[in-house]
C-alpha cells in the first residue's frame, strides 16, 4: 500500500529508479482496485447476462460506475507509465524500452523479463540504487503495519496458515452466496412460472359449477385492474393409449383442462404458440394438446389417438345398472394435435388441454364451467382485487388468489431458504474457527516477540490491535475472494453443471425433481440484500473468531513471554 502511494506521489516523475517492490506492488494494487470495481459492476448487473437490454434503470445505475472505472484507468495511465520507465532505469535501460509494450506478445514478454530483473547494483546514470533508500513507511498506523508484516513472513509470500484460513473464509462465503442466490432464483422462477400458468385470481361458485359464466366474466372484466378472464374446466381423467400392433396400451391419469383458446391467451401463457413443440395448438372437436413429458412417457406423437374415460362414464355405468340396461359405454376418442413445453415439468407431465366444449361433455356440465381464470395487470394487486370482486359479485361466489392456491409450495420455499441460510452459516462458523486456530498458533509462535513488544512499552490494547488487524485482513481477503468466486460460479453455473454432467454422467439437479431444466439464480442486481447480509454476518463471525487469540496475546506478560523460549 505504501508503495502504491509512493508511486502516486511520483505521479509524473520519469527520472530516477524504481525497485521491483515499488513496481509490482503498484501493479498488484492497481489490479486489486480494478477487480473491486469489476465486482461492484458485476453486482449492479452490468456483466450479468440476465440483465437484459430493456431495463433502462439499471443502465443509469451502471453509468457512473463505468465512468469511475474509466476515469481510474485514465488517471493510472501516467503513473504506471512513469513507474515502468523508472523500473527500466533501475535495470540500467532507457525508458524508451517501454515502447516494447506496443508489440503484442513478444514485446510484452521481453518487457516482462526486463521488469522482473533485479536492480542494477550501485549507481547508474539514472540515480543511486533504490534498494539503499529507506522503504516508505508513511501513514500506516504501527499496529496495522506490524500485522501486515506478520502476515507476510520474509521467506514466503504469505504464510501457509494464513493462506489456509483465507481459503476457509473464501469457500464459506462463496458457498453461502451461491446457494442463497440459487435458492432465491429458484423461488423467483417458481413464482414466475406459477404466475405464468396460474391465473392471478380464480372465480367460482360455491359448491357447484359456474353456470352463468359469461355475465360473471363481463362483471369481472369491468374491474379496471383486470386484464383478462377466461373460463376453465379442470379435473382428472383416465387415458389409455391405442398403439397399433403388438404393444399393449398404457394407462395414465392426467388432468384435463378445458380451455377457450382465444380467451385463455389473455390470462396465461399455457396455450401460447411459443410453447409449441410439435403439431398445432388446436383442440377443436376432440382434439388434445399435451405436455412434452406426457407425450414422452406415453410415447405419443401428433395424430395418435387416446381413449379418455371421465368421471361421467362411471355415473352413466351406475345409472345404467340401476335401470338394468346393458348399455356398453365406450370412452371418447381424442386425437393428439399438439405437444407443448410449458417450461414447468409438472405441467408438462400431467396436463392435457381440451376445448371447453369437450371438457363440458366429459364432465356433463352442460353450459357451465368450473370457474374463471382472471389475469391482472399487476400480480401484486391480487389480494386487493379479490376484495373488490367479492363486493361487486353477487353472493355465493368464491374468489381465490394464486398465492392462496399455492400457499404450501410458497411457504415451503421460504422455510427452506431460511433453514438453508442458517445451516450454511455454520460453514462460515467453521471457517471462523479456522481463523481462531491459526491465530492461536500464531500467537504461540510469536510469544517471544509479543513479550519484546510489551517490554518496549506496547500496551495490551496495542498488541490486541495487531492480532485483531490480522484477523481483519484475513477476513476481508477471504470475503473479497469469496464474493469473487461466488459470483463467478453463479455466472457460469449452467456451464459448470453441464461440464459436471458430461464428465461424470451425474445430474446434480434432475428436472424431474426440481421442475426446472436450467439452474436458476437470482440476478446480481437483486442480490444486494443477501450479499450485505452474508458480508456483514461473515465479517462479524470472523472478527469474533479473532477476538480470543488477540485477547490472549494482549494478556501475555513480558517475562512469561521470554521464559517461553
Amino acid at each position, binding site marked *: 500500500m505504501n508503495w502504491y502511494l509512493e508511486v502516486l506521489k511520483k505521479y509524473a516523475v520519469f527520472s530516477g529508479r524504481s525497485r521491483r517492490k515499488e513496481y509490482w506492488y503498484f501493479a498488484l494494487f492497481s489490479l486489486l482496485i480494478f477487480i473491486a470495481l469489476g465486482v461492484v459492476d458485476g453486482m449492479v448487473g452490468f456483466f450479468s447476462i440476465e440483465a437484459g437490454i430493456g431495463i433502462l434503470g439499471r443502465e443509469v445505475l451502471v453509468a457512473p460506475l463505468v465512468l469511475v472505472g474509466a476515469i481510474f484507468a485514465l488517471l493510472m495511465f501516467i503513473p504506471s507509465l512513469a513507474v515502468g520507465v523508472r523500473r527500466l532505469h533501475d535495470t540500467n535501460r532507457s525508458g524508451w524500452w517501454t515502447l516494447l509494450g506496443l508489440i503484442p506478445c513478444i514485446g510484452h514478454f521481453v518487457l516482462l523479463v526486463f521488469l522482473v530483473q533485479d536492480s542494477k547494483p550501485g549507481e547508474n546514470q539514472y540515480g543511486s540504487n533504490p534498494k539503499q533508500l529507506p522503504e516508505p513507511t508513511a501513514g500506516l498506523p504501527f499496529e496495522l503495519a506490524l500485522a501486515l508484516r506478520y502476515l507476510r513472513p520474509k521467506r514466503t509470500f504469505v504464510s501457509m496458515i494464513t493462506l489456509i484460513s483465507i481459503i476457509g473464509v473464501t469457500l464459506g462465503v462463496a458457498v453461502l452466496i451461491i446457494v442463497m442466490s440459487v435458492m432465491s432464483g429458484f423461488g423467483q422462477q417458481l413464482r414466475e412460472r406459477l404466475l405464468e400458468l396460474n391465473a392471478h385470481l380464480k372465480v367460482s361458485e360455491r359448491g357447484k359449477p359456474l353456470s352463468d359464466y359469461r355475465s360473471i366474466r363481463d362483471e369481472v372484466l369491468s374491474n379496471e385492474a383486470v386484464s383478462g378472464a377466461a373460463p376453465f374446466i379442470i379435473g382428472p381423467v383416465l387415458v389409455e393409449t391405442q398403439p397399433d400392433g403388438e404393444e399393449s396400451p398404457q394407462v395414465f391419469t392426467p388432468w384435463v383442462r378445458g380451455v377457450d383458446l382465444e380467451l385463455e391467451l389473455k390470462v396465461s401463457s399455457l396455450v401460447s404458440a411459443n410453447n409449441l413443440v410439435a403439431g398445432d395448438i388446436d383442440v377443436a372437436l376432440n382434439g388434445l394438446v399435451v405436455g412434452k413429458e406426457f407425450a414422452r412417457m406415453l410415447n405419443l406423437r401428433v395424430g395418435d389417438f387416446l381413449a379418455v374415460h371421465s368421471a361421467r362414464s362411471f355415473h352413466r355405468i351406475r345409472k345404467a345398472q340401476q335401470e338394468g340396461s346393458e348399455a356398453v359405454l365406450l370412452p371418447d376418442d381424442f386425437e393428439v394435435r399438439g405437444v407443448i413445453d410449458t417450461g414447468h415439468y409438472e405441467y408438462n407431465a400431467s396436463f392435457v388441454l381440451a376445448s371447453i366444449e369437450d371438457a363440458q361433455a366429459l364432465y356433463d356440465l352442460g353450459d357451465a364451467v368450473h370457474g374463471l381464470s382472471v389475469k391482472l395487470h399487476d400480480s401484486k394487486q391480487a389480494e386487493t382485487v379479490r376484495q373488490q370482486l367479492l363486493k361487486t359479485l353477487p353472493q355465493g361466489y368464491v374468489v381465490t388468489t394464486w398465492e392462496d392456491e399455492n400457499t404450501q409450495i410458497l411457504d415451503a420455499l421460504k422455510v427452506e431458504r431460511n433453514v438453508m441460510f442458517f445451516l450454511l452459516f455454520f460453514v462460515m462458523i467453521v471457517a471462523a474457527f479456522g481463523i481462531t486456530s491459526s491465530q492461536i498458533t500464531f500467537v504461540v509462535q510469536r510469544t517471544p516477540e509479543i513479550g519484546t513488544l510489551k517490554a*518496549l*512499552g506496547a500496551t495490551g490494547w496495542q498488541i490486541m490491535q495487531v492480532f485483531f488487524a490480522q484477523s481483519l485482513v484475513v477476513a476481508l481477503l477471504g470475503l473479497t475472494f469469496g464474493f469473487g468466486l461466488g459470483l463467478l460460479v453463479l455466472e457460469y453455473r449452467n456451464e459448470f453443471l453441464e461440464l459436471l454432467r458430461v464428465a461424470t454422467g451425474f445430474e446434480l439437479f434432475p428436472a424431474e425433481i426440481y421442475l426446472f431444466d436450467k439452474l436458476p439464480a437470482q440476478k446480481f442486481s437483486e442480490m444486494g440484500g443477501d450479499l450485505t447480509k452474508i458480508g456483514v454476518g461473515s465479517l462479524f463471525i470472523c472478527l469474533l473468531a479473532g477476538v480470543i487469540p488477540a485477547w490472549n496475546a494482549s494478556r501475555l506478560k513480558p517475562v512469561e513471554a521470554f521464559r517461553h523460549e
Partner: protein
Amino acid sequence: MSDAILSARELHKSYDLGRRKVEVLHGVSLEIASGDFLSLQGASGAGKSTLLHLLGGLDEPSAGEVFAGDQSLFGMGASRLAKWRNREVGFVFQAYHLLPEFDALENVLIPARIAHTGIGVAERRGRELLERVGLAKRMHHLPTELSGGEQQRVALARSLINQPKILFADEPTGNLDSKTGVEVLDLLCELQREAKLTMIIATHDDRVAARAHATLRLADGLIA
C-alpha cells in the same frame, strides 16, 4: 527518598514450581540515584534477572513495591506502566530480542512507533543512533544478517530511541565473545556518560563491575 530515581522496598518474588513454591527474592530494598551506573552481580540463579525485571516493571513482585520517583510502579495500572516502560526506560537483553521480520532501522524505531512519535523525527533519530553505534551501513539488514555484536548494538540503539532516563541491561555481553563483549560494553559506558543515563547492568562479568560506579551483590535472594 525523593532524590532516588528508582527505589525498591522489601521486594519478594516467588515462583510456583508445581507443588513447591520457590522464593527467589527475600525482601530486597535499594535506592538508585539519577545518573548512577550500577552493576548487579551474583551467581547464576541468584535472582539478578528477576530483580531487574521487577525494577523495570516487566514482572510483578509477590510482595513489596518499586517506586519511580514517588510513584508506585505496580499501583499505576497496566497501560500507564507500559507507557512508563516505553518512555522512561530502555532495556537491553542477553538474547537481543530483535524482531526477525524487521530490519535494523525498523527494529530501532519500534519503541518510537509504539509511542506514535512522528515518523520523520523518529527516523532521523534512529539513523543517528545506528550511526552512533557504528551500524551506519547495516541499517537495512535483517537481524539474521547481522552478527551477535551487531544485533546487540541494534538493541542498544533501540533502547535509546525514546531518550529514556534509565537503562536496564540483562547480561548484555552474555552471548558475545569476549572481544565483541568489550566493544559493546565500551559503547554502553560511553552512551551512559553522554546521556547521563541511570544504568543498571545485571552480569557476572567482572569487567562490568570494574567500570560501574558501584556494585550490588545479590546472594540468597538478598542484597549482600
